């Protein structure tokens, strides 16, 4: 008989690197990233799906990491804010957030960056209204949102220009 406190062997494939960890089944993906992988860029606000601070990409799709169990993410490709730039130059989204003042305290920023990264990769030509609707998934207590929308728009342009040149 297994006890609910028994730890399970889980491999999280985060930003191209495998993290072999042992966690209780109740460990959320967000907590596993922060506590077991040491990747504290993913933030936790509400822990019940409302704020979006914990947004990461699983299989390329933005999800709430507080509502997924670490064991459910076993072996699947995960991307967090730490992987956007890696050791290289800033990602166009990060540059645009800086240039357009898309952040103040920065608490919500990793979640917005990963939400936007996931969406722009899937829908590079997304329209204004659809983009606003998607960005409404996450909460920000500082910026008033306008500069976040501007930043994501600017990043979308830069990504397309770069793709056009490439």
């Amino acid at each position, binding site marked *: 008989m*297994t*006890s*609910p*406190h*028994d730890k*399970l062997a889980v491999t999280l494939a985060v930003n191209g690197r495998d993290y072999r960890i042992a966690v*209780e*089944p*109740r460990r*959320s993906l967000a*907590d596993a990233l922060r506590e077991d992988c040491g990747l504290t860029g993913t933030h936790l606000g509400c*822990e*019940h*799906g409302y704020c*979006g601070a914990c*947004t990461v990409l699983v299989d390329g*799709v*933005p*999800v*709430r990491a*507080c*509502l*997924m*169990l670490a*064991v*459910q993410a076993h072996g699947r490709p995960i991307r967090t804010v730490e992987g956007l730039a890696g050791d290289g130059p800033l990602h166009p989204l990060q540059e645009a957030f800086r240039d357009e003042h898309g952040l103040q305290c920065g608490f919500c920023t990793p979640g917005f960056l990963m*939400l936007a990264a996931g*969406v722009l990769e899937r829908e590079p030509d997304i329209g204004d209204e659809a983009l606003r*609707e*998607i960005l*409404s*998934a996450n909460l920000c207590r500082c910026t008033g949102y306008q500069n976040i929308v501007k930043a994501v728009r600017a990043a979308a342009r830069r990504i397309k220009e770069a793709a056009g040149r490439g």
Partner: protein
Amino acid sequence: MKPAPFSYHAPSTLDAMLALLAEGGEDGKVIAGGQSLVPMMNFRLARPARLFDLNGVAELDFLRAEGGWLRIGALARHAAFHRPPCGGPTGALLAEVVRHIAHYPIRQRGTFAGSIAHADPASEWCLVAATLGAEIVARSRAGERRIGAGDFFLASLSTALRPDELIVEVRLPILDAGWRTGFCEFSRRVGDFGIAMTAVALRVESGVVREARIGVGGVEDHPARQPAAEQALVGQPVAARAFAAAADAVAGAVRPMEDLHADAAYRRHLARTTTRRALEQACAGSGS
């Protein structure tokens, strides 16, 4: 804000899942998208001792039109409805409604069948199921039964499903081109649970309503059709006066819940308005 301990089971076949449910009984729970269950576990409003993960049961990951029905497998996510999953008025209604359910990242995980099983009074999918007359296909080791939506939703978070049963599929009738559909929801902000909402399907011939299905959600403890409003419409020409009469009938019939967001009088007022607007939307551009 962390769940109580539980043991985790991830079957890869339907048979194995049904076996777990048969023995797991009362203290076991299925997790599908986890977008309602995990918040409840984090708040410790739910404390299952054993969690049965549906996500590995690949045979339930389907969404297809077949024999006049849209067959929605238990692993079909909300996001699968961002584009109409079938032709005609049913497909158009589903693609319109899905935009009102939570937010984009939540729609990537949450499932249609999970919404039906969870039975939130303000669930858009439960309202669509009640309005269109969905069939809920429930399976257990003892066999399969099909439950009509009218008999399925009992009260807030309460359904006719037994603890050993799994919803394997939900079936929605695919309406033909003679039908028009409409949907209107009032919520405080995009993505919030609605405070009142109405879904309608009308069969119109030569400008006269021949059949009407009107469902209201978010107002009473479970979504339900509104027979008085439907009767008020059938046989009437498609016109503002008939819509107003149907909306009045809804306002007269509902027994609204009260909560932080709205008292009964406000919900009644909203239900009247969402009904009128859903009817207008259904008939917009139809030359009435």
